[in-house]
C-alpha cells in the first residue's frame, strides 16, 4: 500500500539532521517489530473486537509502542510526538489495528499527564497505557452540548469525597471503561466557566448506570451515563477545585489536533482498500469516468489533509499546546472525511441498499458503514459550527456576537 508519510515531508528539514536520522532509525525498528509480531484479525462484533484490540494494546505496550511521547514516570517512553506519529504510520502501513483505548491515549490521558498529581500520573497512567484500564470522557450532557460550560452534573464535597450526581451523554466506550474523566459543577454560584472541576471517576463505583445508545451505523459505541450520589475520593481531582475549564479546553484541543493526525492515516488505508477493490474488478481495463472522478476526489482530500498535518506536526514538535489552529484542522478533517466517504459511497448507487452487492468491486456493507460513520465527524469533538466560531473570533478577530 502507499501510505504517504507526512513525517517525511520537508518540514522535517527544519527539525535538524540528528532527529531525522533518529526518526528513520525508529521507523526501521518499528517495521522490524511489526514484521515479526502476529497482527490480530479484528472481528466485527463489538465485544469480540474490543477483547482482541485490548490484547493487542497490551502487546504493543509491553514492546514499548504505547505512550511513546509520554513521560517515563507515567509509563511512557519519553520520546517526541514525531516518534509517536512515525509509529502510527508504520502501524497503518503494516495493516495493523490501532490500540483500543484511544480516548485515554489521545484525548484525556495527555491532560492528566500535563495537569495530574504525581499519584494520578504514576498510579493511573501506566494502566491506561497498557490497556488494563479503558477510559471514557464524561463531558457532554443532554442540556450541555455545544454550550459545554453550562453542564449541570454536580459534585458536593463531603469529607474526603466528592458526591457526584447527574447525567452525561455521548460517552464513547463508557460501557467498556474502567475510568472516566468527568467534568462536574462544584460551584453552582460562580459564573459558568468558573465553577467546573475535572474529576477522575472509577466506573465500578456504586451509583453509576451506563446505557449504551445504538448509533445509526448499528454500533453501540457511545452511551448515556447516570451518576446517583457517586462517591469519588478527593485525590481524584485534577488541577484545582473550580479550575477545571482550562483543562477541559486542553483536552478538547488535544483531541482536535491528535485526532486529525491519526484519522489521516485511517483514511489513507480506507481509500487504498477502495482502490484495490476497484482495480481488482477492472483487471487492467480503464475505469468509467464516474469512478475515476470519485477516486480523484479522494486523492485530493488525502493530499490536502497530508499537507495540513505537516503543519500540525510542526506545532506538536514545538510543543505549542492546543491553539485555535487545531479548530482549522478539525474543520478540515470534518469536510474531508465526509468528502472521502461520500465519494466512495456514491459509487454504490442504487446497490447501496444491498449489503452483499459489489458495485465496481466495492464492498457495499463496509462503505455504507463508513459513510454513515463519517456523518458523526462534524458533530463530535465540537461541531463544525463551533469550530467556525473559534476560527472567526480567535484567529480572524471578528467581534463576538
Amino acid at each position, binding site marked *: 500500500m502507499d501510505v504517504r508519510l507526512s513525517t517525511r515531508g520537508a518540514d522535517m528539514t527544519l527539525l535538524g539532521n540528528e532527529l531525522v536520522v533518529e526518526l528513520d532509525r525508529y521507523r526501521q525498528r518499528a517495521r522490524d517489530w511489526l514484521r515479526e509480531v502476529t497482527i490480530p484479525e479484528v472481528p466485527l462484533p463489538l465485544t469480540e473486537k474490543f477483547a482482541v484490540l485490548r490484547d493487542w494494546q497490551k502487546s504493543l505496550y509491553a514492546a514499548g509502542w504505547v505512550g511513546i511521547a509520554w513521560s517515563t514516570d507515567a509509563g511512557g517512553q519519553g520520546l517526541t510526538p514525531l516518534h509517536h506519529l512515525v509509529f502510527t504510520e508504520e502501524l497503518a502501513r503494516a495493516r495493523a489495528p490501532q490500540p483500543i483505548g484511544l480516548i485515554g491515549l489521545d484525548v484525556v490521558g495527555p491532560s492528566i499527564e500535563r495537569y495530574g498529581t504525581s499519584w494520578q500520573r504514576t498510579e493511573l497512567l501506566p494502566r491506561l497505557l497498557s490497556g488494563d484500564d479503558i477510559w471514557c470522557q464524561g463531558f457532554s450532557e443532554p442540556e450541555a452540548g455545544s454550550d459545554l460550560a453550562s453542564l449541570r452534573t454536580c459534585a458536593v464535597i463531603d469529607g474526603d469525597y466528592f458526591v457526584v450526581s447527574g447525567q452525561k451523554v455521548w460517552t464513547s466506550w463508557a460501557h467498556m471503561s474502567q475510568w472516566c474523566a468527568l467534568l462536574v459543577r462544584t460551584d453552582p454560584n460562580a459564573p459558568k466557566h468558573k465553577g467546573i472541576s475535572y474529576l477522575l471517576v472509577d466506573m465500578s463505583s456504586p451509583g453509576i448506570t451506563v446505557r449504551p445508545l445504538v448509533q445509526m451505523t448499528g454500533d453501540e459505541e457511545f452511551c448515556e451515563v447516570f451518576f446517583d450520589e457517586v462517591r469519588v475520593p478527593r485525590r481524584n481531582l485534577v488541577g484545582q477545585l473550580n479550575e477545571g475549564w482550562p483543562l477541559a479546553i486542553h483536552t478538547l484541543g488535544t483531541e482536535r489536533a491528535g485526532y486529525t493526525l491519526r484519522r489521516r492515516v485511517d483514511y489513507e488505508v480506507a481509500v487504498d482498500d477502495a482502490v484495490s477493490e476497484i482495480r481488482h474488478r477492472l483487471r487492467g481495463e480503464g475505469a468509467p469516468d464516474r469512478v475515476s472522478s470519485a477516486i480523484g476526489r479522494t*486523492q485530493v482530500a488525502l493530499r490536502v489533509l*497530508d499537507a495540513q498535518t505537516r503543519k500540525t506536526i510542526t506545532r506538536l514538535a514545538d510543543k505549542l499546546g492546543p491553539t485555535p489552529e487545531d479548530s482549522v484542522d478539525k474543520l478540515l478533517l470534518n469536510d474531508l472525511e465526509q468528502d472521502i466517504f461520500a465519494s466512495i459511497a456514491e459509487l454504490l448507487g442504487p446497490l447501496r441498499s444491498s449489503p452483499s452487492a459489489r458495485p465496481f468491486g466495492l464492498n457495499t456493507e463496509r462503505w455504507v458503514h463508513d459513510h454513515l460513520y463519517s456523518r458523526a465527524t462534524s458533530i463530535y469533538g465540537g461541531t463544525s459550527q463551533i469550530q467556525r466560531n473559534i476560527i472567526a473570533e480567535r484567529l480572524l478577530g471578528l467581534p463576538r456576537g
Partner: protein
Amino acid sequence: MADYLENNEELTSAVGEYLTRSFDSARRLELFGTGGANPQFHSELAELGWFALTVPEHHDGLGLPLSALGPIFATFGRRLVPGPLFESLALPTILIDRNDDPALAELLRETVAGRAVLGLVDPGITEDWGSDIGEIVLTDDGLHGRVEMARFAAQAHSLVVVARHGDDQVVCVVDASDPMISIEEIVSTDPAARYATVMFSGAHCGTAPLATGSDAASLISRMRLWARVLISFEMAGIAERMLELTVRYVTERHQFGVPIGSFQAVKHTVANMYEHTSSLMNLCLAALDDVPNSTENELCHIAVITKAYAADAALRVCESALQMHGGIGFTTEAEVHWYYKRALALRAWYGDERELHRVIGETVLNPRPATLAR
C-alpha cells in the same frame, strides 16, 4: 535547505517591496487595460533580475530552483500582477534545462533581458475542451493546425509549440513572425493576461524540433507540472487577498448597529474562507517540499492534485468574498471583481477540478506508463 528557505523569504519580500513601491493601484489599473502586455513594466521586471532567478548560473542566471518561484507567484496573486510571468520566470529555465542548443541559449538571453517575450502554444491546457481548443500537427512540411487560445502569443517574439507528430508529441520553438503563422488577438475578461488564436499553415520548426519522443513527453510534463504548481500558488495568493479584504470589510461595515462580522452567518462564511485559503497554501507549500524527494511522475501527479484543489478552493473563496461585500463587491468600485475574473481564468487553465479529478483517478486506478504527457 534552511539557507535556501531564508534566501527565498528575502527574495519574496524583495518582490513585495518593489510592488509596493512601483505597482500602486493606479498603475495596476493602467496595466489591466493592456492585459499586462506593457513593454515598460516588462523591462522594469527584467532589470530587477526577476527573469534570471531560476536560470542556471552558466547561463548567467541566479540558479535558484524553480520551487523558489512558488511564494513569488503567491505574491503575484495577492497583488494581482499582470503579464507573461510564467512565460518569463519559469518557461525559459524549463527549456534550457533540457537543451543546451546555442540558438536557444541566445533566445533565452534575450528573454531574460526582457528584449524578447515567449509564448506557450499548448493545446494541453485542457482535456475536456480538447476539441474546442484544437491541435497542432508536425508533418514533413512544417506545423499545421490551430490552437484557439494561447497566452501572450500576439506579444511573443518566439512561440514554444506543443505539437502532435504521428502518435508522438514534439516541442518546437518557432519565430512568431514566420509568415506561415497567423495570430489573432482575443478580447478577454482576464485582467492579467492577453490571449490569441494561433494558426499554423506550414510554419518552419526551426532547424529541428526542440524535443521529440520521450524527451518531448518529459519536457511537456515538466512545463505543465510547473504551470500547475505556479498557477496554484497564484490562486492561493488571490484567496489570501480576498480573505484579508473580506475580514476588513465585515469588521468595518455596520448593519443593525453592529459590524456585520458579529453575525454568525457572516462569521461562518469567513471561517470557511480561512479554512480553504490556509489549506490551499499548505497544499502548495507541500508540493514544493516534495520536489527534492520525488520522481518526475510523482511530481506531475502532485501538481495535478494541487491544481485540482486550487481551482475549487480559490474560486469558493472569491465567491464568498463577493457575497460578503454585498452590492459594492459586484461593482467596479471595489477590487474584488478583478480577483474573481482572474481566478475564473486561471481555474480551468491546465484543468479545473472536474477535469483533474478524472485524470487523477485514471492515474491511480490504471497505473500504466502513459505514452503521452498529460
